[in-house]
């Protein structure tokens, strides 16, 4: 009996072992990555944030530029699901508005007599999905009254909708910026690592130079030089290019060090002896073997881009209204008195923090998983 169990056990072990030997590199990376719970959770949160960004027109209850002076600086409305002790369709209470006689500020209180149930797929403000299809169905909304889940700003615009629209700009600027830095870093770092010599020396000096100057003042100067009469799209790309002008250095360093160490590997030598062209050696043999490192590093450099855009826009030197990004939204929170009275204006910052945190955790997990043969 015991013998049989042992045989069974051995069989199991060999299949597990065989599975490891047979697995491709990407499979091994995935198995290692799966063990990082925090990285997995962060990845899922990021997917949700990007889905928000992609479908922001549909998911936001209001047009982000629709203002309503009756509801300036209105606090967030809580969603309730119990009414008179019974479970009902989720609803919000309307506002009871009083005027503070001393400060002349409006004070909003929930009014239990005004009940606005929340419906799915409600007809609301018309929008163009991805700038193409005209629609007016919103994922959530109310048929009468208002639903400001995260409050409103100084013009009575819905913060929740604005944050969703801001997600589109802020998260995509990180991706595009990183893509540009990646292309620059791969080309420059690749050349300098593969060929070495004078070019390598020169590139190293340039990288050291760029890293030695403080980024924010430089970014500020460059983005202040963007002509103010440019259309928002062009400003957007201008800022992205400015951010990646500095961002490429980190990636170039990683690519270079990988090239340097791989150049001496036996399989590269073998490929060269067989007569493979340099292009083929680089693209077919070298790049795939360090791709996982690069992906981990790319993930870790996206947060810098997002933080850069947010800081610049916050200072008023990056994107400007009517463009909506998280940094632009935070401009509203520059005054401490305003923040003290309506703290929900800081919420775009919370989204920045969550996004950056998730990218950091995901990047850390990917970096640990990137080399499946490391012990």
């Amino acid at each position, binding site marked *: 009996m015991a013998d049989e169990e042992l045989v069974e056990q051995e069989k199991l072990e060999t299949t597990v072992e065989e599975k490891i030997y047979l697995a491709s590199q990407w499979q091994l990376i995935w198995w290692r990555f799966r063990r990082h719970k925090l990285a997995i959770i962060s990845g899922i949160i990021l997917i949700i944030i990007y889905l928000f960004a992609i479908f922001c027109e549909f998911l936001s209850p209001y047009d982000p530029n629709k203002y309503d002076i009756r509801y300036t600086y209105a606090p967030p409305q809580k969603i309730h699901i119990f009414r008179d002790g019974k479970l009902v369709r989720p609803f919000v209470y309307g506002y009871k508005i009083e005027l503070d006689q001393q400060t002349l500020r409006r004070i909003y209180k929930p009014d239990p007599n005004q009940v606005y149930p929340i419906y799915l797929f409600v007809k609301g403000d018309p929008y163009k999905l991805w700038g193409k299809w005209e629609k007016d169905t919103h994922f959530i909304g109310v048929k009468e009254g208002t639903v400001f889940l995260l409050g409103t700003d100084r013009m009575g615009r819905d913060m929740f909708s604005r944050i969703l629209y801001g997600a589109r700009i802020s998260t995509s600027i990180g991706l595009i910026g990183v893509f540009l830095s990646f292309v620059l870093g791969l080309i420059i770092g690749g050349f300098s690592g593969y060929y070495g010599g004078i070019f390598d020396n020169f590139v190293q000096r340039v990288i050291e*130079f760029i890293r*030695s100057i403080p980024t924010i003042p*430089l970014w500020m100067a460059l983005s*202040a030089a963007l002509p103010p009469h440019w259309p928002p799209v062009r400003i957007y790309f201008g800022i992205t290019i400015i951010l990646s002008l500095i961002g490429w250095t980190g990636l170039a360093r990683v690519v270079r060090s990988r090239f340097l160490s791989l150049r001496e590997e036996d399989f590269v030598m073998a490929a060269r002896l067989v007569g493979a062209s340099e292009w083929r050696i680089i693209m077919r043999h070298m790049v795939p073997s360090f791709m996982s490192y690069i992906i981990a590093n790319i993930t870790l450099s996206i947060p810098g881009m997002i933080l850069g855009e947010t800081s610049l826009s916050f200072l008023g030197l990056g994107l400007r209204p009517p463009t909506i990004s998280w940094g632009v939204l935070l401009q509203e*929170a520059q005054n401490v008195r305003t923040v003290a009275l309506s703290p929900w204006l*800081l919420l775009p910052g919370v989204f920045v923090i969550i996004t950056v945190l998730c990218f950091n955790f995901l990047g850390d997990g990917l970096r640990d998983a990137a080399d499946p043969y490391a012990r």
Partner: protein
Amino acid sequence: MFGYVLRRILYMIPTLVLISVVSFIIIQLPPGDFLTSYIAQLSQTGETVDEATIAALKHRYGLDQPYYVQFFMWIWGMFHGDFGQSFEWNRPVSQLIWERLGLTVAVSTFTLILTWIISFPIGMYSATHQYSAGDYSFTFLGYIGLATPNFMIALILMWIAYSVFGASVGGLFSPQYVEAPWSWAKFVDMLGHLWIPAIVIGMGGTAGLIRTLRANLLDELHKPYVITARAKGVPERRLLWRYPLRVAIIPFISTVGWSLPGIISGETIVAVVLSLPTTGPLLLRALQSQDMYLAGSFIMLLSFLTVLGTLISDILLGWVDPRIRYE
């Protein structure tokens, strides 16, 4: 050691040249030169534009000559303490920058020291108590510190101070000292205000340093020589201080070099939020009004300072770690 220092200083020269070229390009970036904006501003306010003054200014900054001549005239002027004219303030740039630059140096140095003081014991604790509750909470706090933009921390701190204590935490001096000449009392007053910006600016850097020290110390702690020493009965505290810590501290010192650009960057933006009388707010105003000689000088001097700081940290590193000198 002397040869090493000399080599480092020589390395610095091309960097400084590049920085001045970039700063000059920044000055030239906005369309039109500063004189055109100056004339436009004057005619906007209804003042008459004196042809002779314009001609004199044009000649002084060589605006009628090619770019490279302008560049050398600008460099030449700087060696004589002439950084150009701020048209917004209608004063020479050199009169505007020095005090602010001095305060920036003060804030940055203080931040650097504070990041060290905070991160050193925490990093040590985290490494010696790996996976303890304390380690986890410091790691978590560190991640938050890395992920939060500096200006958000500043805003939140100001908000708390305002709504809980009803006080404003901005500025570097108490009201009675703002316009006062420098004195011992003013200096002490500044030290009292310095710690809030220092904590805000240093947050990200501190988190990074803690992670570096923790990782390095953890690598060292499991090496055979530590086990040998422990087996021979060296007391735990002395063991830690005498051997692994000395090895782990080297990357710590070398990080001064790369944390300095970050601190100066953070200082610029935090100063705007906390309205510190440092370079940040003036640089922002200068950029917004395209007062380019002022902005360019600021960027150049900030970069110079950073390079200088890196040089000092390199020399320090060479002094601590003999291997570096012979590399």
